[in-house]
């Protein structure tokens, strides 16, 4: 009998139970968390309970720890702002901070590297939510006692928590952990040496495809774009930048410091970098080049000097060049060596004076005997070649006439200086139709 009655009431009872459990869990969470915004302005007392002053800000040290520990307090003592070291904190609750001794060591506050002020630098500032891949403003921060220290464990990004802070009294202090992000999953944009990297933010970003990261960068704006790029390894960032729309990329590069821009450009494909440099304008270009190593600057400057509507302006300089006396095995080894740089469509064979003899496809190399000399392998079909100054339109004609996958670009002495792959051509074509108003090509407007 009872067995039949229980199912009849149990859905409701179960729901009530669950709600009670949930409320209890929330309460426990809430009680174990201390709201930083609510704590600001509360009294700081010594061990005996005597008032020392009011809390103005909390200092945390970013180090290897996932959750940064509180390293100090900024306390208003009389009219002065004083610093109390974190080691002197005894208990920390939502209503007050008790220090562990009666002898208090007050010092002048000075900013130190690797530390941020939670109220001044983090609350109400923008942070990157790495899991959700978006930029949010933090409404509050929560502290908890973990591993023998008070640490920042969560960032509250809810609008409710933000609104709570405009009210006076205890409403302001009551934690409302509704939408709290794990501190490990955010990148704080606290000023100073750039964003604070957390372990998780690095690993998530490392697993994304360059094209997806490019989309994300394009979705963000200005400073947040920069922060995201700072979070990435330069090589990963460079891969992602190559996938961006050229106008977006240019806008982004314009906003970066010259040192950062230079670092990224060095890691990008030379032809893509050259295009960016060309569009940056003379003054900016020179300052970016000055921030690179001489060798990098020289080769990029050479490339950037070519016009965008000439063969030299769209070619890639990275290619594998072998002498006719080298063997097939050596040529293949060279290709494997340069695989990282993306020159994989074959080798260019030159003679003693460096003149172009042939462009040998990988397939031909694989089919040949490993100890054969290159001069034996070369033969028809002969490669298509154009001069550096060949106009864009003629390059396209050459390409369509020969139906090859690449064209070798040579200088006046018939020495190979680069090659144009089909995708370089597609990029150049897309760009020539992309512009809507000619004067809007300068960036920003579209």
């Amino acid at each position, binding site marked *: 009998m009872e067995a039949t009655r229980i199912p009849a009431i149990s859905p409701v009872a179960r729901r009530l139970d669950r709600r009670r459990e949930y409320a209890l869990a929330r309460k426990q969470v809430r009680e174990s968390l201390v709201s930083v915004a609510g704590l600001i302005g509360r009294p700081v007392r010594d061990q005996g309970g005597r008032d020392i002053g009011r809390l103005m800000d909390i200092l945390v040290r970013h180090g290897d720890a996932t959750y940064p520990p509180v390293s100090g307090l900024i306390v208003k003592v009389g009219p002065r702002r004083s610093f109390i070291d974190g080691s002197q904190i005894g208990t920390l609750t939502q209503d007050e901070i008790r220090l562990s001794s009666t002898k208090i060591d007050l010092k002048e506050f000075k900013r130190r590297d690797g530390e941020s002020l939670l109220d001044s630098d983090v609350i109400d500032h923008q942070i990157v939510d790495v899991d959700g891949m978006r930029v*949010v403003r933090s409404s509050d921060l929560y502290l908890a006692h973990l591993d023998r220290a008070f640490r920042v464990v969560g960032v509250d*990004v809810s609008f409710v928590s933000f609104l709570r802070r405009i009210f006076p009294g205890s409403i302001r202090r009551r934690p409302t952990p509704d939408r709290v992000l794990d501190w490990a999953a955010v990148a704080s944009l606290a000023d100073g040496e750039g964003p604070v990297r957390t372990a998780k933010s690095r690993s998530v970003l490392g697993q994304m495809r360059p094209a997806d990261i490019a989309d994300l960068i394009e979705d963000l704006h200005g400073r947040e774009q920069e922060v995201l790029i700072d979070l990435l390894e330069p090589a990963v960032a460079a891969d992602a930048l190559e996938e961006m729309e050229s106008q977006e990329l240019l*806008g982004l590069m314009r906003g970066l410091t010259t040192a950062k821009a230079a670092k990224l450009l060095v890691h990008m494909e030379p032809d893509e970098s050259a295009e960016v440099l060309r569009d940056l304008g003379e003054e900016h270009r020179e300052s970016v080049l000055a921030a690179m190593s001489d060798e990098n600057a020289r080769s990029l400057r050479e490339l950037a000097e070519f016009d965008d509507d000439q063969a030299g302006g769209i070619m890639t300089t990275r290619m594998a060049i072998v002498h006719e006396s080298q063997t097939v095995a050596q040529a293949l080894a060279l290709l494997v060596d340069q695989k990282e740089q993306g020159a994989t469509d074959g080798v260019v064979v030159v003679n003693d004076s460096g003149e172009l003899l042939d462009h040998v496809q990988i397939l031909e190399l694989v089919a040949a005997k490993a100890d054969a000399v290159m001069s034996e392998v070369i033969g028809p079909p002969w490669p298509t070649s154009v001069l550096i100054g060949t106009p864009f339109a003629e390059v396209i004609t050459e390409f369509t006439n020969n139906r090859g996958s690449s064209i070798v670009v040579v200088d006046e002495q018939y020495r190979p200086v680069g090659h144009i792959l089909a995708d370089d051509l597609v990029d150049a074509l897309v760009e020539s139709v992309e512009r809507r108003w000619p*004067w809007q090509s300068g960036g920003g407007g579209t």
Partner: protein
Amino acid sequence: MKQKIKGVMPRKSIRFAAFFAVMGPGIIAGLSDDDPAGITTYSILGAHYGYQMLWVLLISTIALILFQDLGARIGVVTRQGLIGLIRQKYGARSGVMSAISLIIANVGTMTAEFAGIAAGAQLFGVSKFVSVPLAAVLVTGLVLRGSFGRVERVFFLLSAVFLAYIVAGFMSHPDWGKAARGLVVPSMPLTHDSILIATATLGTTLAPWGLTFIQSYAVDKRLTRDDLRLLRADVWAGSLLTGVIGFFVVITCAATLNVQHISIVNASDAAAALKPLAGTLAKDLFAIGLIGAALLAASILPLSTAYAASDLTGRPAALDDRMREAPLFYGTFAAVTLLSAILVLLPGAPLVTILVLTQVLNAVLLLPLLFFMYGIARDRRLMGEFVSSRAILNVYLTVIAAVSICIAAMLWYSFH
């Protein structure tokens, strides 16, 4: 394409082309200050005081240049909107209070824009029940469907309508000598009305929504520090143009209405009164200018509000975002437009009270906003190398002091 241009164009033209790419924030934000409320104020200034008080316009234009320039610079350097920065630097309460006042003031001002459209269309015999919904649909459609580039081009086209005032000015055969003297020699009758109109001129030129708009718009346009020099030119051009349009409205009314001692209460009165004095064309130009001005401001106001709302919640939005990505941004835009259109069309809505209270709220809100901007301008952590020098900070303070006096005078007269 671009490289071909670089190949054949002389350096000067390249610089000109670059200016076209940066141009926008200053001109659009500036000209939107010449909205129907502004035109009304300028018309009354001219109709009642002739050329005598043109200097007030000059001072207002200088104040406009200074603070629009600062707003644009803050936007480019910090890449955040003003409301977001206030929240960040001055805390939750300041942020919320500024945003709420701005939103309410903007709804009120938007109502004034729709009233201007209704009045302008009425001059051509079009009912407000046609013109206002049409304008609301046009404005919303433009922003919802257009990309940033397209929206901006429509703004530029609308701005061209202001040329109508310059033509109308010449057609009214003003006394240029008197106009020049009025511009540089400060004098005014010390009466209740003249003080009020002087304050209104300053208040209508330097508006809170314009200040927040230019900053958010510069961020949305993704202008960078490299563009700052050109942006400054844009701000100067826009603010000066705003002053020049105001100047022509004043002299049109001074040369016609003031000479004939015709008293007016709003801009459509001015247009109607122009007909017998300067011909039908002058009247039509004046009315077209009024509608164009209202349309431009009616596009900017909800946009300014939408930027502010999304900025406050910490989820910055942009015109290029899709509706799904930025529901708050587009929701705010639609809500402001809809609410204002309803207020204008609702029979028996206390329009005059709304407009007066809006003006007061705008004036009251202006002062804290100017102080916040001043505080940001001197904050080295935010502005870095672009932090303002001691000298320019003093200039800002002088303007703020002048604005405070005007606002105090206006509040005094509004409630006495």
